[in-house]
């Protein structure tokens, strides 16, 4: 079981999913119409480290975060 959380302006409650890699997460989230506009411009972190590949393996207890476009300052 992993947790998926949506940061900043993405108004969505965390999900708990039984998945083992980010490819599976992509397939699941792509079915969510609300999220369509965010998937193409959001970064992904696993346990608070940004990742760049969908092949990233996941283990139970991992926390996945979606980070939409940023603008500090």
């Amino acid at each position, binding site marked *: 079981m992993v947790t998926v959380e949506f*940061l*900043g*302006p993405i108004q969505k409650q965390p999900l708990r999913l039984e998945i083992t890699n*980010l*490819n599976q*997460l*992509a*397939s699941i*989230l*792509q079915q969510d119409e609300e999220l369509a506009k965010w*998937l*193409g*411009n*959001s*970064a*992904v*972190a696993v346990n*608070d*480290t*940004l*990742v*760049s*590949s*969908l092949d990233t393996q996941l283990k139970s207890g991992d926390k996945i*975060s*979606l*980070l*939409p*476009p*940023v*603008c*500090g*300052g």
Partner: protein
Amino acid sequence: MLYLYEGSLDVPTILKEWYEAEATSNYGAFIPFVGTVRDEEGIEGLSFDIYEPILNSWFEAWAQKAKERGAIIKMAHSRGDVMNHESSYIAAVFSPKRRVALEFIEEFVEDFKASAPIWKYDLIGGKRVYALDRSTAMQGSGILGAKG
């Protein structure tokens, strides 16, 4: 050091504290960058969300880069609402010589804009409106949108 505040920053006090904290550290150059909310396009102010775990690791990486160049950095940022003409951001570099400080503050502020996990909202009619058009997708964004 990284300091997060609820609401606007007390800029004179923060600059005074930072300056005095390094008063005998023998840095020849001190350059703060202060960001203030502009009254434009009918907004009442801005509001910010921060994701602290990744902000901390991003900042730590920059603190390490600064150290390698004999410099130090400090940063303060607001959470929540900051009204027009109030300040939400201070970044500062101290270094022995001016060239490193001038280069470092620019690199740091530009990467901050592109990479720090902070989300900005316009305050319009008391409501938060996400400032998508002024926001930047972080490096590596979009992997979940690719069709498998």
